[in-house]
């Protein structure tokens, strides 16, 4: 039967009717795609889906899933990244194709370890749950039939007979609601969670599930299938990893930061050294604020701290000359004399600006890199405070920065759940007094740029999600945020931005 439908599909494809390939906007991803695809499309599809899943993760932590804000934001993201969403439920072949292919590519990248699998499974399930909930009743029925999950509906007579039992067993369902809703007889194996927690009526080996809980059943089914598939994929991975074209991309996908790398400085020279102290309080992410303070206090930083902070400063626009001056002035206050500085530390600063040795222009570290590599030890101040600080100490630090207690609690919750970047986003929201950060944080320099933009009035703090995700692209194209009180010859897109910013900084 499968055979003939595939043959039929192939025939239809040749015949030009592509819609039959994807009869529904939703699917269980049971069959891998079989067409040929360019490496460019391969990569861009994968990256887009990864962005989508990161947004799903972000939203899942910041909002309750059933609320309108969650739904609207997620729908916007789907639309923006050209994945299937509600309005296009009937005819969106391209989006469905992208959905299909990108899912399978990410499977390759995310099957490789227990942690990756768990993350992927969680986000895919949340995404599925949302898209399923958006289907109309008619489409839902059709989809259930399509995936062979059309459970036997309970007849009206039987339902009347069992009405009281159904009402008592199913939380949230009053007698009138029981009468109007459809119930289905589902095998216990398909309704494990509802069965286990006694949230359904059970009789004769079947669970009597109301229509509104069918999504839990479907989700359970999807999770089981995807979990098995991921385990299977992991086993066949060695053969895929041997393909040289795919190997780097797949590694990149599961570990990397995706976005601008702040290596090309379009805004060099816009910051003066005198501004750094106040900038560190207003616009630096916590990790850099911490490093700056440690540097000021001890007049020294060890290697890890110098790299992380030094490259960050380069990313926000410090020129090599400024950097040399900055570090030297500070280190001289400590135990280092001018000569020693010039001989040792200066070299390494020039090196990181690409002026020595290999002449690689080192890129500022992304959050992923800071969180996952080179953890700090005693005497170090680098790393991610949300990841590497003891929660008690983190709490004290936030208190000393006058973060409100409720905000601190939220941050600590996120830290406990290992959502370090989301904790930093919360820190941004609290220090900038906005409800919604408006973008997905992946890079300390991104934090800085966004902060500057917000403070200069270049962005409305409570805007809709249209800025999220896009902000990374915008950063690339964004010309300048002129921070220097003396205008330089760089191009500015918004003079009003400039003025506002100048006024802001001259106040200090």
């Amino acid at each position, binding site marked *: 039967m499968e055979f003939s439908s595939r043959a039929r599909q192939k025939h239809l494809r040749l015949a030009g009717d592509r819609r039959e390939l994807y009869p529904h906007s939703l699917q269980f991803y049971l069959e891998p795609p079989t067409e040929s695809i360019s490496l460019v499309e391969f990569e861009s599809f994968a990256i887009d889906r990864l962005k989508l899943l990161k947004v799903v993760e972000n939203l899942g932590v910041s909002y309750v899933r059933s609320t309108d804000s969650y739904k609207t934001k997620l729908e916007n993201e789907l639309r923006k990244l050209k994945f299937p969403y509600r309005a296009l439920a009937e005819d969106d072949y391209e989006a469905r194709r992208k959905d299909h292919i990108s899912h399978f590519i990410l499977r390759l990248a995310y099957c490789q370890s227990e942690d990756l699998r768990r993350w992927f499974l969680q986000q895919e399930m949340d995404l599925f749950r949302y898209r399923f909930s958006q289907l109309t009743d008619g489409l839902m029925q059709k989809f259930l039939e399509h995936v062979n999950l059309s459970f036997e509906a309970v007849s009206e007579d039987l339902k009347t007979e069992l009405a009281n039992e159904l009402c008592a*067993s199913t939380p949230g369902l009053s007698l009138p609601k029981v009468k109007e809703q459809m119930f289905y007889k589902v095998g216990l*194996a398909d309704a*494990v969670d509802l*069965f*286990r927690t006694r949230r359904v009526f059970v009789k004769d080996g*079947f669970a009597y599930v109301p229509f509104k809980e069918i999504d839990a059943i479907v989700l359970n089914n999807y999770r089981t299938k995807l979990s098995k598939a991921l385990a299977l994929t992991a086993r066949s991975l060695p053969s895929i990893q041997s393909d040289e074209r795919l190997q780097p991309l797949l590694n990149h996908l599961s570990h990397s930061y995706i976005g601008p790398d702040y290596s090309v400085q379009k805004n060099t020279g816009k910051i003066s050294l005198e501004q750094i102290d106040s900038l560190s309080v207003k616009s630096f992410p916590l990790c850099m604020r911490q490093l700056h303070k440690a540097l000021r206090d001890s007049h020294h930083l060890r290697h890890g701290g110098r790299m992380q902070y030094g490259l960050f400063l380069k990313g926000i626009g410090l020129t090599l000359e400024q950097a040399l001056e900055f570090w030297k002035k500070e280190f001289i206050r400590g135990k280092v004399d001018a000569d020693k500085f010039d001989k040792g530390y200066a070299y390494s600063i020039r090196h990181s600006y690409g002026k020595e040795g290999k002449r690689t222009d080192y890129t500022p570290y992304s959050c992923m890199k800071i969180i996952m590599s080179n953890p700090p030890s005693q005497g170090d101040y680098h790393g991610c405070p949300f990841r590497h600080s003891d929660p008690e100490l983190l709490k004290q630090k936030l208190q000393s920065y006058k973060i409100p207690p409720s905000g601190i609690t939220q941050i600590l919750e996120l830290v406990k759940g290992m959502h370090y970047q989301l904790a930093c986003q919360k820190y941004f929201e609290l220090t900038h007094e906005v409800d919604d950060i408006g973008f997905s944080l992946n890079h300390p320099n991104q934090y800085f740029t966004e902060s500057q933009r917000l403070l200069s009035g270049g962005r409305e703090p409570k805007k809709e999600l249209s800025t999220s995700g896009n902000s990374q692209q915008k950063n690339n194209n964004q010309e300048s945020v002129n921070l220097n009180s003396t205008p330089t010859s760089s191009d500015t897109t918004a003079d009003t931005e400039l003025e506002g910013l100048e006024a802001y900084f001259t106040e200090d």
Partner: protein
Amino acid sequence: MAPFEPAALPELLPVFYRRLFPHGPYGRWLGYGGVVKNYFQLREFSFTLRDDVYVRFQSFSSPQELERELQKINPYKIDIGAVYSHRPNQHNTVHLGAFQPQEKELVFDIDMTDYDDVRTCCSSADICSKCWTLMTIAVRVIDRALTEDLGMRHRLWVYSGRRGVHCWVCDDAVRKWSPALRAATVEYLTLVKGGADTVKKVNLSYPVHPFIRRSVAVVEKYFEEYALVGQDILGSPESWDKVLALVPEEHREALQGEFPRRKDSVQRWEVLRGRMERTRGRGAAPCYADWEIMLQFCFPRLDINVSKGVGHLLKSPFSVHPKTGRISVPLDLQTLDQFDPFAVPTITSLCHELDTAGSDGEQEDVGEMEPKRRARDYKRTSLAPYVRVFEQFVEGMESARRGERLRRSDIQGDF
């Protein structure tokens, strides 16, 4: 009846396995009609031998071979494990990770020690006729749920030989259940939660699930006799204080005041129950403390680890209990209320019965004795009724299989 001496086991076990153990029905049970190829051969058995020597992954090519081996090895104890992907006795030849348990009966183990927090008559391994009622209640509650709620047909309840009962659910579909589904079943059947630190172990809220309601109805039948008369849980201020600790504060004072004025547990319970029932009638803030108390004192406690794992080994029916000498006999649900664990035959008493019963004695005249007569020797002893229960259970499954075959051939049209 001569008392059981563990030291006598080496003498008694050979007699037991030759003349008392019901090899016939036992083999028919585990063969499951030969429907699935090699089902019996892939089954794991484990034996406990003399001096606590324990051997796992025993398997046999037929029930006849099992019988011969039992008579040769004379194990102190037999455990039944899962049906595996390969013959268990060859598991070392199989590639690591490929040897996996595939199917097994769904089993439950209810142990009296888990009720120590609510028993006053005994503790740990001890049981008495007063607290045995708890097992009766447990079997009734669980069996009702297994049949009515979960639709299970072929259940074998067995006395464990000392202080508890086991249940073997043998339906074809259930033997294939995943660990997750087995664990979910135990959760569905669990109402008593909490350890030594928890005072109130049962908490109910409106609306009450039918499973709970029906379980309470079963418990109610036994509660007065067991808890109020037998255990006398409201008999004195110390004991009724423990019970009142489970009642919400707003009702406690009134009851504290009323209790001394009543003459016994039965009357006091009536006061408590009546009060709770009235809150439910009014509908404003229904209180289920009376149900919660009944459940905390009587509802079965299940060990999830026994039920969850497909590979978990459990003591076989008709195995001898090494400490008490009692045989793990099947329970007849029709006469469950009259079951007396102290009347269960021990291996000593059975052998004694054989001696007095006939001229065969303990001579091992292998040539002379007819296998048929030897195999049916149990019929001359008090083991007979228990074997009958077991046979009925096996016959039940066989007739169900026949019915299924007929149904299928009807559908397919072969005759």
